[in-house]
């Protein structure tokens, strides 16, 4: 079973990398650009057929290692 996980800084945490990317894109002429937040993306594959079990495992992976919950949020979605 495959999942994709996005880890991104919480809204109220300053994201200087996102800001620099945003400013550079504006310089490149994308004047309607409103906001960019930069995050991390993981593709996770599990040997598990029970979807609920698999999802729980991925959630624990996020909480234990992939995200730092003080500053980051995570989103899990099942992929094909």
């Amino acid at each position: 079973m495959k999942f994709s996980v996005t880890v991104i800084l919480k809204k109220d945490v300053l994201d200087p990398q996102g800001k620099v990317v945003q400013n550079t894109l504006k310089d490149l002429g994308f004047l309607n650009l409103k906001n960019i937040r930069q995050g991390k993306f993981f593709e996770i594959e599990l040997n598990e057929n029970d979807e609920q079990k698999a999802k729980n495992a991925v959630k624990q992976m996020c909480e234990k290692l992939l995200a730092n919950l003080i500053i980051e949020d995570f989103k899990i979605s099942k992929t094909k």
Partner: protein
Amino acid sequence: MKSSVIVFPGSNCDRDIAVALEKMQFKNQMVWHKETELPKSDLIIIPGGFSYGDYLRSGAIAGKSSIINEVIKAANSGCLILGICNGFQILTETGLLKGTLLRNKNLRFINKDVNIKVLNNETKFTSKYKKNQILRINIAHNEGNYFTNAKHLDEMREKNLIAFKYCDEKGNINTQSNPNGALNNIAGIYNSKKNILGMMPHPERMIDKLVSNDDGINLFSSLLK
């Protein structure tokens, strides 16, 4: 006084701290991160460097290594723990110290000597310093921008848990004297029992006037008492 320095793949200040400890007459041992037992120690040091190449987040992988469980046990039974630079980042990843270290505000790796002020000299780490003494100490990091929630910041202020703050040479604590964007210019903090200190500056680089200055010596001599 027995000390242990934990070594991870990518640690690069482990030898510097060992030299400092030996100079100060500590009986020091190096402990590889794969060990599952710690030698008997009064002081455990998590040194600076780039453990696991800063993969995922600085300190994240080292914070889950097998020796860290032993460090957590020792910390909970009152052993003194000092985390310097990457060591501070690792301590926040283990939860032994609250908060976290974000990317420097200017997005650059900063390597320079800065001034820090000793806010609390009534701890086992700082008793040989004067209160509000200004030290000149080297910093070398990419993620030194300390961040925590408002509740924890209040707790640190109330219980005097902020160890050091960045300041200018006259001791003024302001935006101009903040090298990395750290919340309230925080350069180092204690846990609530004050047996754990995490700091971004490198006191082990300041133990010899021939190569730098000796502003870091009193941190080690405080610990020896």
